[in-house]
């Protein structure tokens, strides 16, 4: 690996739509204040489900986020979040594709699962089932069956990608990935690789998801993956706490604008951080369970550090995957302890899922953005709701108050169902400069 010749990549724009805020600064302020986005689900009648709470995006106006009515029609709820977050990221960076450079702009997204809307499934049900509810294909041939091409478009696996490319005129490399909860991290990793190999000069990279609908939440309820603390929504997500009992389902989107470091400097851009390293491994253990010894996540973290030409010594903050399930948090802590050794007592660690809930395919992207903001402001957001220590999770959690202190580099982990692990390293721009001087 020719590490010395790696192209340096800058993060120059951030956009976020999350359960704790519909913009980056609103989200960041809420995370620093330890404000929870969880509440009883209001998007639909969830009263019969084993879990009735979730972390919903609130007061989101899709029409103002997606000015083109043709695009808006084809946009699902999560696509609306994506278009809004991406627009914010581009505005923040102060650049966007032009006809001259649009072919050098790329797009990498972590997209949510293609889960059908309940209302659409209900229509299929009403036309195309027998008396027991079993599917009967001929029902779709009834002349009045409302087959909607718009719904079909919205449902395509790369619909979000297509809408983003169109809205912003991105004509270069484009990829859409889905590795469950690791999707957002993997998308940003894919973007880094595409930029390093010279395929793009600018990239919009992020993730979006919304499974807070009857079909989306059903899959997790069936698996027993969600917290059932329905009477205590704001305390339900408590990563690393001994009494943790599942995650709180969230929704939203996060996007970063990435560009060539030298070009960003040249145009006088504000640089949040260097996107310095990507690590990516497969646990090959079980489909939902995490390896108790951290084998899998360990390799991803090592790779990310190596890819960033750094060591554990430079990492001052870890934004953990920390879902608040028994297995994930134990496995992740085992991995962190294996990699960081004694230094784990000095590195600030928090899972912002304690406030935002689990944004699934968007989680890694939103948490990457959190790392950039933590570096910018020199402060680590809190791991809320941590009360009962778990000896398996004895890492240096940021509890109570956000913890100030310069962050030279930050690490974020995203560990998905199916065993995909993504780790990213972001470096403080001042450390990039001092590195070059020395």
């Amino acid at each position, binding site marked *: 690996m020719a590490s010395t010749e790696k192209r340096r990549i800058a993060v120059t724009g951030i956009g976020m739509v999350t359960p704790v805020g519909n913009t980056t600064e609103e989200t960041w302020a809420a995370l620093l204040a330890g404000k929870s986005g969880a509440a009883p689900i209001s998007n639909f009648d969830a009263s019969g*489900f084993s879990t009735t709470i979730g972390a919903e995006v609130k007061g989101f106006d899709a029409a103002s986020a997606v000015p083109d009515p043709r695009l808006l029609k084809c946009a699902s709820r999560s696509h609306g979040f994506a278009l809004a977050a991406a627009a914010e990221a581009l505005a923040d960076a102060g650049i966007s594709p032009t006809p001259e450079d649009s072919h050098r702009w790329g797009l990498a997204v972590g997209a949510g699962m293609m889960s059908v809307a309940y209302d659409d499934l209900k229509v299929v049900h009403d036309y195309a089932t027998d008396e027991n509810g079993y599917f009967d294909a001929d029902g779709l041939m009834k002349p009045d069956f409302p087959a909607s091409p718009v719904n079909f478009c919205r449902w395509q696996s790369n*619909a979000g990608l297509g809408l983003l490319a169109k809205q912003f005129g991105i004509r270069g490399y484009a990829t859409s990935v889905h590795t469950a909860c690791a999707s957002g991290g993997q998308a940003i990793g894919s973007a880094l690789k595409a930029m390093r*190999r010279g395929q793009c000069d600018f990239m919009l990279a992020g993730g979006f998801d919304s499974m807070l609908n009857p*079909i989306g939440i059903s899959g997790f309820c069936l698996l027993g993956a969600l917290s059932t603390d329905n009477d205590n929504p704001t305390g339900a997500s408590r990563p690393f706490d001994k009494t943790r009992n599942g995650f709180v389902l969230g929704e939203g989107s996060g996007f970063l604008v990435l560009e060539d470091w030298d070009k960003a400097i040249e145009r006088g851009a504000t640089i949040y951080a260097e996107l310095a390293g990507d690590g990516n491994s497969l646990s090959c253990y079980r489909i939902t369970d995490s390896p108790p010894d951290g084998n899998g996540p360990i390799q991803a973290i090592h790779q990310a550090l190596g890819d960033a030409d750094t060591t554990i010594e430079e990492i001052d903050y870890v934004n953990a995957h920390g879902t608040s399930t028994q297995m994930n948090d134990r496995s992740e802590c085992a991995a962190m302890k294996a990699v960081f050794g004694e230094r784990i007592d000095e590195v600030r660690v928090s899972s912002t899922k304690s406030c935002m809930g689990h944004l699934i395919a968007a989680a890694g992207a939103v948490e990457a953005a959190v790392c950039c903001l933590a570096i910018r402001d020199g402060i680590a957001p809190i791991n809320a709701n941590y009360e009962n220590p778990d000896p398996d999770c004895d890492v240096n959690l940021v509890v109570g108050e956000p913890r100030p202190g310069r962050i030279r580099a930050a690490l974020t982990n995203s560990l998905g169902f199916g065993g995909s692990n993504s780790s990213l390293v972001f470096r403080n721009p001042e450390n990039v400069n001092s590195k070059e001087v020395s």
Partner: protein
Amino acid sequence: MKNASEKIVITGRGIVCGAGATPDDVWSVLESGETAVGPYSQWDGEKWPVQVAAEVKENNRTLVPDRKLHKTISRTDMFGIYAADQAIAESELLAHRDALEETEQGPFNDRTGLIVGAGGGNYSSNYDYLPLITEAEGSLQKFGSELSNMVTPMWLLKNLPNNVLCHVGIRGQLKGTNACITNQCSSGIMAVAESASAIWNGEADRIVAAGHDSPFEPEMVLYYHKLGLMSSEAPKPFDEQRSGTIFGEGAASVVLERESDAEARGAEVLGEFLGFGCCSEATGILDLDPDGDGVRRAIEQALDDADLAPSDVGLICAHGNGTRASDLTESIGIRHVFGDAIPPVTGFKWAYGHLIAASGIVDIVMTLEALRRKSAPGIPTCEKVDPEIGDFPVSTESVTPSSDVALVICRGFGGMNVVVALRATS
């Protein structure tokens, strides 16, 4: 862009589609000129406007013998697992690993990647909820409370888009870099392109790339039909009478590694990955640039990436899905690059239908086969090239590629265009 001294070669292939479950079987169908598109069996098509498809005929247990595994995977996953198993077996990659010293096996696994292109989801998977909707009589509250009595707890796991990644990984302990690409039609071909890039980049020493899909299902047929994208018979790419595409289903897989590594372990080299191009036309979900802009740019990128001149290309395997707009704009894009010197063009969807997420990777395996055999099957359903397309070198008969280099073109929703350049090793 890449380290030119490192050749990336293909040392294993797997394929399953309506035309067969080995490269040789599928080749026989392509050579015979007899399409595998025919009446389907998954539902009664009598009342349907489209009554044919290219269904996989092999039964589940032939493809994936592990009975337990079938409880946690869907039909598309079965295809992907089968194809990856075949490719890994042909490459003898794991046999090689298992012969290493035990201490070397862990690092070998950590440096072995797996990149999968997946369809991302099926309408039919959601039908598991239909009896619950009946039971709930329109009440969402009851839907929630009866959920666990009516739907399998495994539902989400059975339908994860990244299942093939997970299960092939577990079976082979492929623990290195990985991705599951869900980019509609571009997914499978991008899995191959990203794999080669990752090896060039030093992220892994070898990668299994796979792509799988089972788009053939009632709602998909209906919506494609409503959008005017479906034919009622085997597709007729580039023909003046073409009226749309027909679904296939299946998967393909290739094993990629450095030529030097393949030689060192004595693996048979089947072909070489030369480079790729990938771009969006920024036209939204369904629309296409009328000037073939994305096709042109993706071809130019692939040629540049592979250090090739247009005149080096001896064969083009076109996307050729048989729809009016896609075939026309594809031909325009090709003409922009090659002018009057277009190499022989073929395409295989007339034989095994359109496999959507798996379409590009299935075409890669069969294009490699055509280069190796120095014979490119024609498009027997293209009897008269569309005058609007003009003079275009497609043939109903087999032709001889004019060199050992081919381009595979894959187009998809989202304005996607991906082109891969391959060379045969004979």
